Every structure is written in structure tokens, then in C-alpha cells.
């Protein structure tokens, strides 16, 4: 009678503890430092140690969720192609339970083609500098889900875009 109860108690207690602290402050620091190194040295293979293979990233600058580490690397490769001198810093970090919140700043010069929904845009030579925030959810030491927020409009304006009211379709047929 008592033994199963004790086992049950141990089990619930063990579970509770796990839910409270899946990632420690030191582990979080190490992982985010490695992430910054991966980006700043364009060594994207380092990301294998950070993200789970089936990670899902919700990034407000991406039209759809980025599903899987390979897709994430492809997305980053496009960033690095547009901003070959991309430099990133982490400015603040919150670690709680299975989540970390990081505030980051990214800067770079647009000396390569930029991949957008309008197609590839030629390099502008413009400098970009913007900050954002990411929430990461960890499981077994790796990031399994990520949410990224930043002011995409500001970044696009730095890259030479402007925001305009809808344009009437060009009367191409009349020209013929």
C-alpha cells in the first residue's frame, strides 16, 4: 500500500522539479554564446548543437513558419548572403523553466542580394541596425520551438524599401 504511494509521490515530485528547471542559467548562456558564434563566424553547422532537427521557428519576418533545422539554416544563409558582415550581440536574457528570452541586436551591410517575397533584390550598400527578441523553448538541452519578434518595417526601410498605399494596377493592356 505504502510503496506504490511513495513511488507515485517520488514520480510527481521528480516531474515537478523537471518542469521547474529544464535549463540552467549557465547552460542558457553557453547555448546563446554558441549561437552568436555560429552567426558571427557564419559557421552554421554549430547550430546542430543548439536546435533540435524538427525545430519550429515562428519569425514575424518569414511569411510562414520555418520547420526543421535544414530550413532554418537555409533561411540564415539568405540573411548572410544579403549581409555578409552580419554581426550579432545578445543584450539581455531571461531564463525560466524550459524557456529563455533573449534581446538581441543585429547589424550589417547589405552588399549581397536580398531574398524577398518580391524576388531577389540587388545589393544597396545600406547599413542595417535593429533589435529584436526571441523566446526559445528547450527540450532535452536543445531548442524545439522559437518565436522571434522585431520591427520588420524598420529593417526594410533601412534596406531601401518604403511603405505605400496600394497602387492601382498598371494599365499594361492599353499600351498594346
Amino acid at each position, binding site marked *: 500500500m505504502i510503496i506504490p504511494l511513495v513511488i507515485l509521490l517520488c514520480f510527481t515530485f521528480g516531474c515537478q522539479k523537471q518542469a521547474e528547471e529544464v535549463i540552467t542559467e549557465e547552460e542558457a548562456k553557453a547555448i546563446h554564446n554558441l549561437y552568436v558564434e555560429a552567426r558571427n563566424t557564419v559557421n552554421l553547422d554549430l547550430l546542430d548543437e543548439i536546435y533540435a532537427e524538427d525545430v519550429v521557428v515562428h519569425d*514575424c519576418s518569414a511569411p510562414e513558419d520555418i520547420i526543421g533545422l535544414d530550413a532554418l539554416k537555409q533561411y540564415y544563409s539568405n540573411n548572410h548572403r544579403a549581409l555578409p558582415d552580419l554581426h550579432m550581440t545578445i543584450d*539581455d536574457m*531571461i*531564463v*525560466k*523553466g524550459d*524557456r529563455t*528570452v533573449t*534581446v538581441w*541586436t543585429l547589424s550589417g551591410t547589405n552588399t549581397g542580394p536580398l531574398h524577398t517575397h*518580391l524576388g531577389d*533584390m*540587388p545589393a*544597396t550598400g545600406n547599413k542595417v*541596425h*535593429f*533589435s*529584436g*527578441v526571441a*523566446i526559445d523553448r528547450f527540450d532535452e538541452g536543445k531548442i524545439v520551438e522559437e*518565436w522571434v*519578434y*522585431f*520591427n*520588420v*518595417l*524598420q529593417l*526594410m526601410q533601412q534596406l*531601401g*524599401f*518604403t*511603405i*505605400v*498605399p*496600394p*497602387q492601382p494596377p498598371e494599365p499594361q493592356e492599353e499600351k498594346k
Partner: protein
Amino acid sequence: MKQLYIILPLALILSFMVGFQDREAMTESEAMKAQAEVEEQNKEIVRDFFKAIDERNTEKLMELLPIDFSLTSPDITEFTGRVKLVHFRDAFYESFPDASHTIDELIAEGDKVAVKLHINATHEAEYEGIPATGKKVTQYGMHIMRIVDGQIKEIWVFEDVLGLMQQLGMELKPKEGEK
């Protein structure tokens, strides 16, 4: 008899050590409990803040913010003063009178609370030069707040402004002559 002389101090030392460890463990868990309580209180302050914003309860906002409250939206806007936040809120609610904040997640650690949220609103008057469209919009964002003595001392705001603009019918275009 001689054995007792040895065992007694040993037992005394042992019990003392165990007792001491226990006490240390106790204070540690008490500190953790106190910390968890503060973090829960901080979350409640954040919930109250968004409720006060949506209800346009200025009196409650004044309670929740110190005079030298500051807001930073990196590289976009940065200001100090809680009255400015009230002006900012009033201007926003003029364009979006039914705006309401929904908190999707709160992460509290130490004196900080990270807030994942979205705003639902109807565009009923001019906003950033865009005349009323009557459109229903949803804006997603993240705020990080630092709480000092039961008040929100600092807020950092990260929002997808482009997403909002696109919902209002605006389009992103390369600037003329920059090609």
C-alpha cells in the same frame, strides 16, 4: 566507557552538521519561495497594466507606473514619463477605439517579465496617415518589463509594425531611384 567518549562528540558533531545543512536548505528553499511569490506578483502587475490600458483607466495606470517610467522601442522611439504613455495610448485608441490586448504568455524571472501578446482592433480613424479602413487587424508583439517596488519602471517594446501596415492595405515597395 572510553568508546562512549569518542562516539558522543562524534554524534554531536554529526547532528550539528545535519541540522546546519537542513537549516541552510530551508533558507534556500524559503528564498526561492519568496522569489516565486515576487514573480507571481510581477505577473499580476503586468496583467493589471494591460487591463488598465484597455479600460483607459488612467488612475490605475498612474498607480502602476512611477513618474520616471521609461519606454524603449529600440531605434524607433524612446521616452521617459508616464504621461507620455497616456498620450500615446489615447492617440492609438482614437484610431482603434475597440483595441484590446490579449496576453499569450508571461515569463517572469527576477525583476523582469517578458510578455508575448497580441492586439485585436478595428481601424476606425486615421492612423499614421492611413484613413479609416474599417478593417479588423491583429498585431503581434513582445514586451519586456522591469518591475521595481510594485511598479513598472521600464518597458521594451518589439512589435511587427509591417504586419499591421499590411493588414491596413499598405504595400512594401523598393524606393524609386534606389535600384
